[in-house]
């Protein structure tokens, strides 16, 4: 199952995109309470957003974004049936992507 949930609704000629990503977003500052060892940093560095295959936004993130990140933005000149794709890459080189149709 994808780690990304996207909802895109058209309002006039704007697509309101709301997304949730499942990711720990570890800062590297927290300690394991039992062992006392630092939990290594593990966070999404970049999120790319595409509208009908064209990149419209790149988000560069640090570990200061909350666990299970939420990201909302609006795409202008969109209509029902357009595709919105969101993909992320983290500091361990892992990645995922998901695509939805604007409703």
């Amino acid at each position, binding site marked *: 199952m994808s780690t990304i949930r996207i909802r895109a609704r058209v309002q006039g000629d704007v697509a309101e995109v709301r997304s949730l990503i499942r990711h720990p977003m570890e800062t590297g500052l927290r300690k394991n309470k039992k062992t006392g060892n630092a939990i290594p940093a593990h966070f999404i560095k970049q999120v790319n957003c595409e509208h009908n295959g064209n990149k419209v936004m790149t988000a560069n993130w640090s570990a200061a974004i909350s666990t299970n990140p*939420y*990201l909302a933005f609006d795409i202008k000149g969109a209509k029902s049936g357009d595709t919105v794709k969101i993909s992320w890459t983290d500091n361990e080189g892992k990645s995922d992507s998901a695509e939805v149709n604007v409703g």
Partner: protein
Amino acid sequence: MNMKRRVFLKGTLASGAVAVAVGAGLLTSGQVLASWPESAFGNRPFNDALSNLHGSADLSDSDAIEIEAPDIAENGMVVPITIRTSLSNVESIDLLVAEGNSPLTSSYQMTPAVAGFISTRIKMGQSSDVVAVVKSGGKLHSARREVKVTVGGCGG
């Protein structure tokens, strides 16, 4: 002298890491082009984060930027922040925590296809001004808003 050595080391390490990532097939060429601004993130003074990101830390206050955030955040692990701007030709929006150890939380590069609007949730270790920096027409515009944090959410 020392500074140059730092810059040299940083450059060597950064390009090395990217080369390894490309070699391992982890990144497509598009992702490499839009590189992550290593020198703007992390533990550094507010102005250094901005100038490393934009080449300048000259901000002009703007009424055309609105920050939506709680006055008091009970849980610093999850502080919802929304930035809206009516400025035209928005090139990027940055979200910073002025008194944070690592001030830059995130930076959004946008094409004209995206409206001047971003909403996300951040971690805050302590009460601080939250600063929105909008790059428009090559200039940096900003607005700030104080958020009081009851329980910090960065360490453990």
